[in-house]
């Protein structure tokens, strides 16, 4: 491919493109995907776990879901060393701001573009995921319906055949009855229950 215009992030190609930025976006396209969906009573985040080796020491923390502040959480896809730096900066900066604009979902990428979304997908097969979301997203969906949609999207876009709790992480952000923002991470047990409930975990039933 072009070797002349991609040595630095600030060099434009004759067609007016920044190759380094495009390569970075390409790298994210190969990472495990993450999906966020807005509900009327909260936000739901799901992520695809890529590292599922039995030898790996499983820490209590999750692979790609991070709490930023009491009222903010994020899911990331891409290079984890870079993500850690961004998460750290976000946590420090979050201490300076106030809250109260209802539930929101944002997506950003290496080019620095960002925007608010009702449903967003990043990582592997994000275009397929995005188009399912476009078809099935309903404006007034409850959190429960949105969890179902998120699991459905992930089960259809993931490369592996059967969806299990080890390959998935799921978190919800919502208001408690006392109007406190709560960030809830699902345990493997409750994930398994959800997968059975929504009928996506028939081991080796779907063979493609």
């Amino acid at each position, binding site marked *: 491919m072009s070797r002349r215009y991609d040595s630095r992030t600030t060099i434009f190609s004759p067609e007016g493109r920044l190759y380094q930025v495009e390569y970075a976006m390409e790298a994210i396209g190969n990472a495990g995907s993450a999906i966020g969906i807005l509900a009327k009573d909260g936000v739901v985040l799901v992520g695809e776990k890529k590292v599922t080796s039995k030898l790996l020491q499983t820490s*209590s*923390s999750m692979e790609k879901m991070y*709490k930023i*502040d009491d009222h903010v959480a994020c899911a990331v896809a891409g290079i984890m060393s870079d993500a850690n730096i961004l998460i750290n900066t976000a*946590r420090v900066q979050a*201490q300076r701001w106030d809250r109260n604009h209802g539930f929101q979902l944002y997506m950003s990428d290496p080019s620095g573009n960002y925007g608010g979304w009702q449903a967003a997908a990043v990582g592997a097969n994000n275009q397929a995921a995005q188009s399912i979301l476009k078809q099935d997203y309903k404006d007034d969906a409850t959190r429960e319906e949105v969890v179902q949609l998120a699991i459905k999207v992930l089960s259809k876009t993931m490369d592996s055949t059967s969806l299990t709790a080890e390959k998935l992480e799921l978190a919800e952000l919502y208001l408690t009855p006392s109007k406190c923002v709560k960030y809830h991470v699902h345990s493997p047990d409750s994930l398994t229950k959800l997968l059975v409930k929504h009928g996506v975990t028939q081991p080796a039933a779907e063979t493609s």
Partner: protein
Amino acid sequence: SIFEYNGSAVVAMVGKNCFAIASDRRLGVQLQTIATDFQRISKIHDRVFIGLSGLATDVQTLYQRLVFRHKLYQLREERDMKPETFASLVSAILYEKRFGPYLCQPVIAGLGDDDKPFICTMDSIGAKELAKDFVVSGTASESLYGACEAMYKPDMEAEELFETISQALLSSVDRDCLSGWGGHVYIVTPTEIKERILKGRMD
């Protein structure tokens, strides 16, 4: 002394699987009282409290920095700080300003993982002083030493500890012109936090 500009009294005591921390409520400018509802004790999390005596502006600034640092610790470690760890954090933050210190003397009290109470105090540049029974600080510290020395017994239950710390505080601030106007007491057990406002000699 700038430590006596606003006036203050803070004390913490250890009981049986519990602790108490108490302070006065006066904010003054030398001998003139400005406010009678000043907060010197703050909750860091359910099991760790800090009381800051000394200059009120620095009390509030230091408190904000400590809350900030604890929040980042919580996010990164996904757990609360142990009292011992928190005391080391306060000490380090204070010593950072060795040659222009925050003009505060902190009192830190907390319950460890095994419900063992921990109390400690330090000077304005972070030299820790650990104690098994009680710690005091503020303009009323000298009278607090006397009152606590006379009233303290080891292994008190929560209710008796509340009576003791309250009597010690109220009798001490009456002997100090710069602190008083009632008191603020927290009793912390493994299962609950009791917060009480005391009325004393309101003059």
